C-alpha cells in the first residue's frame, strides 16, 4: 500500500532563485526501509520535512504539486495529527533534547498525544529495552554523550509509535561506535515493528545492508531509485555526483570491471569475504588444472 506519494512536487524556499525540490514524483510503500542519499543541498532535508508537515507549516516558500500521506494531503491535516503518524529524528543531538532528563524526554511525546499513565509506563519500558538506556533514566542532557542523546531521541519518537519514521542524518555528528549503536536500534525496530523507515545518511556502510531501497537525490531531483545491489551498479554516476560508496562495494565494483568477478555486488564485509574466498578457490583450481 502506498502511504506516501509525491506528485509533481516542487518547493522553493523564500528568496531562493532555485527550487530545492524540483517536480519530484515518488511513491513510498508501507513497511519499506528506505535510504535517501545525496550531497548537501540536494534537497534531502527538504524532502523529509515535506513528509511530516514542517514544510510548508514552519517554512516560507512556494509549493507546487502534492504531498499525500495516508491518502490525505499534508496541508489538510489538523495541527498535531500528522506528527503522530510520522516520527522524525534530527541530526543535532543537542538541539532536539527538549526536556530536562532522559525520562522526561522519552515521556514528553507520549504526554503530548494524551496517553494515560499506565500506557506511558508500558511504552517507556519497551523503549528503554530497545534503546538500552535503562541506567541513564534520570540523567540530564549535559551528562550524556552525543550518541546517547541520539538514542534518546530515537526512543522518544519510537515511544509515540508512529507509522512512519523519518531520520534526517541521525548519525552525522556521532563517532563510529555511537553510529553502530543507533543503527542497532533501528535494526531491532525493523525486526520488531516492521514500520516504514526513511533514513537520510552520508555514511552508507551501515545503511546499505538494511535498506530495501535506495534513492539518490541531486539538485532537487531523483536520479536513482533502486534496491541496493542494482543501485550500486551505477558506479560512474555515483562517483560523478560525489557519493562515497561503502568500501567493499567499491572494491568489488573494480573487480567486476577488471573481469575477475561477475554477479551481484556484496553489501557487507561477511558477504564480501565469502565471495573473495570463492574467487580465490576458483582461481587456484584453474591454475592447477
Amino acid at each position, binding site marked *: 500500500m502506498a502511504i506516501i506519494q509525491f506528485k509533481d512536487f516542487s518547493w522553493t524556499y523564500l528568496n531562493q532563485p532555485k527550487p530545492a525540490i524540483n517536480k519530484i514524483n515518488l511513491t513510498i510503500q508501507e513497511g519499506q526501509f528506505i535510504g535517501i542519499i545525496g550531497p548537501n543541498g540536494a534537497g534531502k532535508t527538504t524532502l523529509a520535512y515535506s513528509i511530516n508537515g514542517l514544510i510548508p507549516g514552519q517554512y516560507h516558500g512556494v509549493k507546487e504539486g502534492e504531498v499525500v500521506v495516508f491518502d490525505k494531503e499534508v496541508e489538510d491535516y489538523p*495541527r*498535531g495529527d500528522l506528527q503522530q503518524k510520522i516520527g522524525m529524528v*534530527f541530526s543535532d543531538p543537542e538541539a532536539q533534547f527538549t526536556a530536562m532528563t532522559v525520562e522526561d524526554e522519552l*515521556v514528553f511525546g507520549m504526554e*503530548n498525544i494524551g496517553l494515560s499513565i499506565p500506557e506511558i509506563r508500558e511504552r*517507556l519500558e519497551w523503549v528503554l529495552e530497545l534503546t538500552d538506556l535503562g541506567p541513564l533514566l534520570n540523567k540530564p542532557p549535559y551528562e550524556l554523550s552525543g550518541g546517547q542523546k541520539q538514542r534518546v531521541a530515537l526512543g522518544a519518537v519510537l515511544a509515540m509509535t508512529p507509522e512512519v519514521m523519518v531520520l534526517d542524518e541521525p548519525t552525522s555528528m556521532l563517532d563510529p561506535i555511537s553510529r553502530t549503536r543507533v543503527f542497532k536500534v533501528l535494526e531491532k525496530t525493523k525486526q520488531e515493528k516492521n514500520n516504514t523507515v526513511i533514513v537520510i545518511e552520508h555514511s552508507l556502510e551501515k545503511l546499505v545492508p538494511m535498506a530495501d531501497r535506495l534513492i539518490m537525490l541531486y539538485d532537487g531531483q531523483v536520479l536513482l531509485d533502486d534496491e541496493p545491489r542494482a543501485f550500486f551498479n551505477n558506479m560512474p554516476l555515483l562517483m560523478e555526483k560525489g557519493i562515497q560508496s561503502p568500501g567493499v562495494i567499491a572494491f568489488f565494483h573494480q573487480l567486476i570491471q577488471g573481469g575477475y568477478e561477475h554477479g551481484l555486488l556484496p553489501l557487507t564485509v561477511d558477504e564480501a569475504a565469502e565471495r573473495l574466498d570463492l574467487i580465490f578457490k576458483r582461481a587456484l583450481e584453474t591454475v592447477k588444472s
Partner: protein
Amino acid sequence: MNKTLLGYVPKESPINAIHPFVKLFFLLIVSLFPLFIQAPEWNGILFVAILLLMAYSRINMGIMRIYVPVAISMGTIILISYTILGGIHPDYAILFNVLGRPIYWERVRDALVVYIRILPMIATMVFFLSTSRERDVIVAMRSIKAPFVVTYVFAMALRSAGMVLEDFHIVRQAEQARGFDTTGKSLVYKIRKYVMYMIPLFALSLRRSEEFTNALIARGYAFTGEAAKVKRADYVLTHYQFRNLDKLLTTAILLLFVTLLVFRYILGFMGLESSLIHLLYQ
C-alpha cells in the same frame, strides 16, 4: 551529591524527602514574611532561622561566602541612598555630618530596617535554589496546576541558560585563539568589546531555536489548536508523593503565616515603634 540549581546537596540530606511543592510553598510564603515585619530584630531572627535550615539541609555553607560581597555592597548602597542622598529633614535628629550633608538617625534606622528585611527574602531564594533540582521546580509548578506552557517555558529558560553559558565560554576561547587579550586593558575597553560576544551567541541561539522548534513539533507538541487541549498525564509526578510530612509542613508554614499576621496587626508586635532598635539611639 545531587546537583541543584545553585550547587549541590548530598544524597542523605533531609530536604530530598520533601515534596517539591512544599519547597516552592516555603519560598513563596516565607519570602513574604519580612514584608509584614518591620522590627529588624525579628527579621534578623528569621534570617538566622533560614540559615539554620540551610545548615540542617546539609547545604555546603562555605558557598555562602560568594554572597558576602554582594550583601556588603547592597547594604552600602542602601545606606548611602537613605543617608547622603536621603534629603533634608529638619525634624530628624542629626547624628553627624559628612561632606556637609547631615546624617540623620531616622534615615540610618530606616536603612537598617530595609536591609535586614531584604536579607531573609534573599536567603529564602538561595535556600530554594540550593535545594531544588530543575525537575523539582517543574514538579512544583505542575502540582499547583500551573499551565503547562508556563512550566515548560520556565524549564527551557533554565536549559538555555546552561547552553548559553557554555557557548559563552567557547566564544571567549575562540576570541583568545585569535589573539584577543583583555589583560591590562581598561574596564571601558572590556565592556565595549563584550558587545562582540553578542554576535556569535545570537547566531548560535537563532540556529538552535529553529531546530528546537522543529523538534517540539516532531514530538507532537502543538502550541495552539485542538491538539493543544489534550489532557497531559504528567508522568513525572508519579515519582513524587505528597506524604503526611509534606501535608504537615505545608500546614505549619500556613499557620506560621497566619500567626505572624495576628501578632503583627491584632496584637501589634514586630512593628517599628516597639522595636529594640530604638535602644541604639534615644
